[in-house]
């Protein structure tokens, strides 16, 4: 269960969401798209086109990839980001994993139609009134869970159909969960009426994912959720938690430290499944940028300090004070400049 905290304007998390779905299409997986904002058909029409040219890939060194394990009970797809190798490393150290996508082009409709996909658009579903047991959960969430469970059992993703020889994977994408459009009040106030709906939903979803051959990505407008306790609980219930922080509109946009990038990637949690240990990469500072054709995630590194007047200390100050400013300690940030070690 990949949990993504959206950036403020949702631009980049949408991109990540589409990448996940596009990868599913290219790998031939089935898709399930749920949304309360845009109609899933529209989302599917805007998926990036896959790049089939190998040489283009070798020039860069970075991509989003998916790895699948085939087992009956616990099916997980781990989401791995590979970091950009050091500048002087030769391109052969880089391994190809997954597919690349060209953000400037849309995926062709024939490719989209080549896989089976299911959609759940909240406003259409709410108008019909099926029978529901008393679930003590937000009705939008409950209906989504029922829909997912129905697809899983009908299409045999939970192994219930022994006749089916070819087992496939279901990729579930849920857009902007927890937002007001889903009928959940967590984004509106500190003390929502039903603080448990979101966590209950995630728990049941986790159960469904563990029981079937499926993987799920959820994007959530975390910056709108004021009750931080819910975010902590949600982190505990997810396998992987990634946060995207874009620089648009924040003071970091003009910070020379970040001039090459469009935002930061925070990896809050990685999955620890079927083993005592988890796979941790060397560095935790990742940043992303959206070039004309490609969306890349790279290790954050300081650009070389070439000017004579700007000393290293002040650059660190800038980073330090930017961090402090963002956490609301304005006075402290100014004082830091005068601190001598």
């Amino acid at each position, binding site marked *: 269960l990949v949990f993504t905290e959206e950036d403020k304007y949702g631009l980049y998390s949408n991109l990540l969401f589409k990448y996940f779905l596009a990868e599913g299409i290219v790998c031939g997986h089935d898709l399930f798209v749920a949304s309360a904002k845009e109609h899933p058909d529209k989302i599917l029409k805007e998926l990036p086109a896959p790049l089939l040219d190998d040489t283009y890939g070798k020039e860069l060194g970075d991509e989003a990839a998916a790895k699948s394990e085939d*087992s009956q*009970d*616990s099916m997980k797809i781990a989401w791995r980001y590979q970091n950009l190798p050091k500048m002087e490393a030769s391109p052969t150290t880089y391994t190809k994993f997954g597919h690349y996508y060209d953000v400037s082009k849309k995926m062709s409709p024939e490719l989209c139609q080549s896989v089976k996909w299911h959609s759940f658009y909240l406003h259409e579903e709410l108008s019909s009134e099926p029978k529901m*047991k*008393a*679930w*003590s959960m937000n009705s939008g969430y409950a209906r989504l*869970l*029922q829909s997912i*469970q129905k697809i899983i059992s009908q299409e045999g993703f939970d192994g219930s159909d022994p006749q089916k020889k070819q087992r496939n994977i279901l990729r579930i994408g849920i857009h902007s969960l927890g937002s007001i459009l889903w009928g959940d009040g967590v984004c509106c106030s500190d003390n929502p009426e039903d603080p*448990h709906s979101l*966590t*209950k939903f*995630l*728990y*049941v979803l*986790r*159960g*469904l994912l*563990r*029981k079937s051959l499926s993987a799920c990505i959820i994007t959530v407008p975390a910056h709108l959720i004021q*009750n*931080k*306790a819910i975010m*902590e*609980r949600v982190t*505990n*219930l997810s396998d992987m938690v990634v946060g995207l922080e874009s620089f648009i509109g924040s003071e970091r946009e003009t910070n020379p430290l970040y001039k090459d990038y469009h935002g930061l990637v925070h990896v809050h949690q990685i999955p*620890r*499944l*079927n*083993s*005592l*240990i*988890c796979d*941790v990469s*060397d560095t*935790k500072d990742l940043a992303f940028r959206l070039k004309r054709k490609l969306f890349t995630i790279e290790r954050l590194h300081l650009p070389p300090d070439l000017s004579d007047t700007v000393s290293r200390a002040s650059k660190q100050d800038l980073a330090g004070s930017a961090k402090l400013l963002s956490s609301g300690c304005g006075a402290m940030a100014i004082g830091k400049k005068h601190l001598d070690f």
Partner: protein
Amino acid sequence: QGKFTLLRDTRTDGSFLVHHFLSFYLRAGCKVCFVALLQSFSHYNIVAQKLGVSLAAAKERGQLVFLEGLKSCLDLLFGEEEQPGQPSPLQFLSTSDLRALFDFVRVSLAPSAGDSWKGPVLLVDDLSVLLSLGAAPVAVLDFIHYCRMSVCCQLKGNIVVLVHSNEDSEDEENELLVNALCHHSDLILWAEGLATGFCKDVHGQIKIIKRLSLRQAGEQDLVQIYQYKIQDRNVTFFARGLSAAVL
């Protein structure tokens, strides 16, 4: 005998302690009731096999009673109507009442004729999930209290419970739960991520607190601190600052 052990983690994942206790008690020949709320059976099974114990075999011979929370909740919500008189242990999802869960624990650890197991053990992974699922912290504390009376006092067994906590946490309900449990525990194993951040060679530090002050007035709690590194089949512990990478 009759001890309540609290496993606590902060800024890191303390589930390796759960795996350890599970295989430890099974190897010791105790009857274990494992309330596994967060992960599937196969996850625990695969890790236990690496540690040398087979959970499936233990289940077969009746030594292990495994409540797989994720599966039970699906059965409850998507299954057919349950038979009357057989309430699902996860009923609190709709009724916020943990009584059915306690009954499940009590029944599974009750000694039956022909049982040759040493001491019953209740293992819970993890308690903080109950709060996420709508139970009130007082209800969870009551549940633990009932379990203690039943398992520790009546049956002279042990209880091991995992909770998550965070410093500067805004989750007041969770903090309330954790603090209350800390006061009543005989032994606290607190796994913390390093304050200086992530490190490849030292995954965290573990604080072992023996609550001697509970048993005898005037005694001080004994606190020991070690650092650890988790490997595929093992966890190595060493004194602070003496990790293999440094020496």
